[in-house]
């Protein structure tokens, strides 16, 4: 096996370099396999993937007409999501506006937007968590999963 011999050669090289390095390399491998095998981690990764898939479907149903499939927005009518300092700095407000809408001036990346957005009142907390997970982990965003219980807490505090 060619790949095996390459691997053993590289380990052999490390062995020659310093035995301590090899030891830490083995520990690294062990710890890696330990974590990847824990069911909790695995379940969480599956959940994240499910939220991403569902979130994309919901995004295309409720959001992308205006904000566009690639999150670019349109002119100064609909603000972008693919790169947005507003999203970065106002996570809770983003959760609220999905359900309750928003009116008035909104500054995104230094540009002024001012078109009212109607909320989608029918969205469930799970659906909001899925959309948030999708928009916050697509394009340039890598926020990680948004949990339903986070959404529940935030929605309870939304201004009317």
């Amino acid at each position, binding site marked *: 096996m060619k790949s095996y011999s390459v691997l053993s050669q590289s380990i052999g090289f490390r062995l020659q370099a310093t035995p301590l390095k090899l030891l830490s390399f083995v520990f690294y491998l062990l710890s890696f396999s330990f974590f990847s095998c824990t069911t909790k981690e695995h379940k969480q990764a599956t959940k994240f993937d499910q939220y991403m898939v569902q979130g994309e479907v919901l995004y295309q149903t409720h959001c992308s007409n205006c904000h566009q499939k690639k999150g670019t927005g349109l002119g*100064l009518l609909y603000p972008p999501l693919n790169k947005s300092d507003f999203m970065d700095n106002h996570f809770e407000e983003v959760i609220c506006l999905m359900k309750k809408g928003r009116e008035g001036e909104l500054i995104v990346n230094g540009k002024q937007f001012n078109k009212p957005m109607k909320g989608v009142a029918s969205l469930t907390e799970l659906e909001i968590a899925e959309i948030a997970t999708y928009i916050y982990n697509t394009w340039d965003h890598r926020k990680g999963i948004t949990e339903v219980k986070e959404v529940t807490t935030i929605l309870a505090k939304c201004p009317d």
Partner: protein
Amino acid sequence: MLIVSLVVYSCAIKEKPLPIFGERSVVGNDTVYHTIAHFEFLDQDSALVTNDTFKDKIYVADFFFTSCRTICPIMKTQMKRVYDTLQNKPDVLILSHTIDPEYDTVALLHDFAERLGVESKKWHFVTGVKDSIYKIAQTSYFATAMEDKTEPDGFIHSGAFLLIDKQGHIRGKYDGTKEDDVNRLIGDIERLRSN
């Protein structure tokens, strides 16, 4: 040699002219085609827009409203693509009618056009008497436009883009929500210009 002759041959094929939509009648020796009826609306600069605005111009028409969240934003995204191809074509204009004139005032249309980043002399957003807008949509452009409180945003309307020639005849109908169909429109505008 073969390639050269193929190129020459393909250039020699004359494309079929675009169809003329609607009913036609024969008066004496002339065929009279369906023509866009007389209209008078106000655009985003409060300027009067009539058939004369489009005299000797080709134009693309559609029906929308600014507060619509369903197909209109997609139509506007696609129409903006059309607009971007018209920069060096002074003989082609765009005419977008609001079907919600009570909400879409001149001021609101002005703000909308400005935010979209388009010039008023190229792309007219018009408002007017509601019944006149609905009537011209249905009888002149064959496009559906009406109020319906059971719809999510209160209106039903078609997402069609209509291509109108210099004589006021409809020469093409396209689905303004489909990128492929709008590409066809962009091609047809060129065909119409070169006729």
